[in-house]
């Protein structure tokens, strides 16, 4: 395996890690505020469909992105209503949202496009194109003629869609918002001890709604990335469990932004390696591709089992807040 092949695998890891990262950060805001969200998958899927559908009809991918985010926000609103206003079970609400998205996307896709639950292929301005950074080569021949550093720059760093760079930029932003602003302090406090926040005169309901909506925005971007950047159009069930891998990454990262980036890159790498090699020979053993696919889930169970450190979720997570009467 030569250097360029390694770079290509890393490059595709970054592409595959991006939707995970966006969804993982989305879950981070929500869960830090004490609202469990297993509906990341559904929000992503719905956003993927509407962004692709609107990008196709309008011919402009940015309009599609806005549509995707709006869809995700509607679902986030339902989740907020169920788990904050009506103090329902957050997990059940998440399950409902996942099914709602899985069903609705296909039903509406069939009505709009009659192509068996998919959108027509997106072309030109209806897709996010790859950006070639200044001074980078974009052809394989050009990259092959470069030195190692140039190859890293051209293959790994350059040549992604704008959303990849946006996702990477949101990591430090999230860290700053959560740990260096008053808003972030309140958001985290609401997830740990809402009663204390309430006593201080800050609205628990408002803080939680804001967190859930931020989660909606990020899931919307993640979905739009899936349908308009990673692939060219929507197909049925295209999120393919990524929302749950993002959830796994969130636990793996113990609800911290920088670790979330690491976890998502790691899981993206698993995905990229699994895509490239069917079975991997390690000495005498052959690692089957299915093992690579299941690895993120297995790792999370190992972490949850407390074999490697201990993953402690925000203390008030999953509990509806009832003001004392």
């Amino acid at each position, binding site marked *: 395996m030569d250097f360029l092949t390694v770079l290509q695998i890393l490059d595709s890891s970054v592409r595959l890690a991006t939707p995970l990262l966006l969804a993982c950060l989305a879950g981070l805001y929500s869960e830090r505020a004490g609202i469990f969200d*297993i509906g990341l998958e559904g929000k992503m899927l719905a956003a993927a469909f509407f962004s692709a559908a609107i990008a196709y009809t309008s011919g402009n991918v940015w309009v599609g992105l806005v549509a995707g985010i709006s869809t995700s926000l509607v679902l986030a609103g*339902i989740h907020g*209503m*169920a*788990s904050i206003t*009506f*103090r*329902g*079970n*957050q*997990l*059940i*609400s998440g*399950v*409902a*949202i*996942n*099914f*709602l998205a*899985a*069903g*609705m996307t*296909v*039903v509406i896709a*069939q*009505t709009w496009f009659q192509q068996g*639950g998919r959108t027509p292929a997106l072309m030109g301005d209806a897709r996010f194109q790859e950006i070639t950074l200044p001074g980078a080569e974009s052809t394989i021949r050009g990259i092959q003629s470069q030195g190692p550093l140039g190859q890293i720059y051209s293959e790994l760093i350059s040549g992604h869609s704008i959303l990849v760079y946006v996702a990477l930029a949101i990591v430090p932003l999230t860290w700053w918002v959560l740990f260096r602003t008053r808003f972030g302090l309140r958001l985290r406090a609401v997830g740990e001890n809402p009663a204390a926040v309430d006593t201080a005169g800050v609205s628990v309901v408002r803080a939680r709604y804001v967190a859930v909506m931020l989660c909606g925005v990020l899931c919307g971007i993640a979905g739009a990335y899936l349908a308009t950047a990673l692939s060219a159009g929507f197909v049925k069930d295209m999120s393919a*469990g990524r929302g*749950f891998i993002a*959830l*796994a990454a969130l*636990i793996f990262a113990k609800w911290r932004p920088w670790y979330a980036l690491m976890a998502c890159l790691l899981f993206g790498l698993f995905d990229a390696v699994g895509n490239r090699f069917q079975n991997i020979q390690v000495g005498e053993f052959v690692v*089957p591709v*299915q*093992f690579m*696919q*299941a690895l993120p*889930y*297995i790792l*999370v*169970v190992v972490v*949850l*089992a*407390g074999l490697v450190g201990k*993953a402690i*979720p925000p203390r008030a997570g999953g509990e509806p807040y009832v003001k004392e009467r």
Partner: protein
Amino acid sequence: MEKMPKWADVILIPLISVILALFVSGLVVLYIGENPFEAMAIMIRGALGSAYGWGYTLFYATNFIFTGLAVAVAFHARMFNIGGEGQAALGGLGVAVICLTIPWPHWSLALVAACAGAALFGAAWAAIPAYLQAKRGSHIVITTIMFNFIASALLVYLLVNVFRVPGSMAPETARFPEMTHLPNAGDIAPWLGFRSSTPLNISFLLALLACLGVWLLIWRTRLGYEIRAFGHSETAAVYAGINPVKIIMVAMLISGGLAGLMAINAVMGEAERLVIDSVQGAGFVGIAVALMGRSHPVGVFLAALLFGVLYQGGAELEFEMPAVSREMVVVIQALVILFTGALDNMVRMPMERLFLSLRRRESGQETPAE
């Protein structure tokens, strides 16, 4: 004092929630440009209008009874077992191992052994999340979700690399031997109009037995009492000398076993071989069924029947109204979960207020203040 009479809690609220869910589904059908009442008529006719329809409706209902009971038992111990999908998949593996490795002389013996195998494999798949919840406090919802994905990868691996018939491309096991084929409704009750190809089989009776068994377990045994006590208040249960580790483990093992038993119907009764994705989402339907049935076996039975109608009727609907895709059933399922589960308080709060005001008017001025 109860805020509402019992019948309102058990019947009225679920009924209103389901009507709300169907109403919103009707709006979706209307948006697609079809008549929702006509769609409903097609679904009911398709599901219940012929022996053919009943054969499929009750077949689906059998699956949903098992997965619904599985979720319900865990609910009684206040646990959310979202892993029915994976546990049922493993149950299928158990059935396949039993049916393929031992030459059974008669289907009844094979059925007993396959039940044991299915329940054992299903329970084993629930055992690790249960142990982690009981001993390590890892959230059961997260671990069971992860185990669904691990189960799916494991089954693909086994079907492709271990069980696949040599020379065949299809990732499925060989057909089970003749002697393990369960009698279906066509064999048992041909006078009702069932054909020999109907998927409804003797597992339906098994599902009814399971309903009875769960009722006896939860409301008529000491263990069931302990499970319910634990579900109501963990601290009170511990104070009363109930061992939380034991209750979590036992409740989840029973839950996993019930989910695994679904494979008797789907794998042994219908497909007669193990294929990829033999569960087809029934594990998740179980969540809707248990929520709607208020975790009571009778409720689970009725809700499973309703979902059987929806699944079979949905297939007919797609045939007669091509504009309405089959996924409409998933939308209805989602709305039922949303309204009966997550938005329960949206219906409950106004109803409680209504009943309180009714009661106040009845009692007049006798008790003006508390």
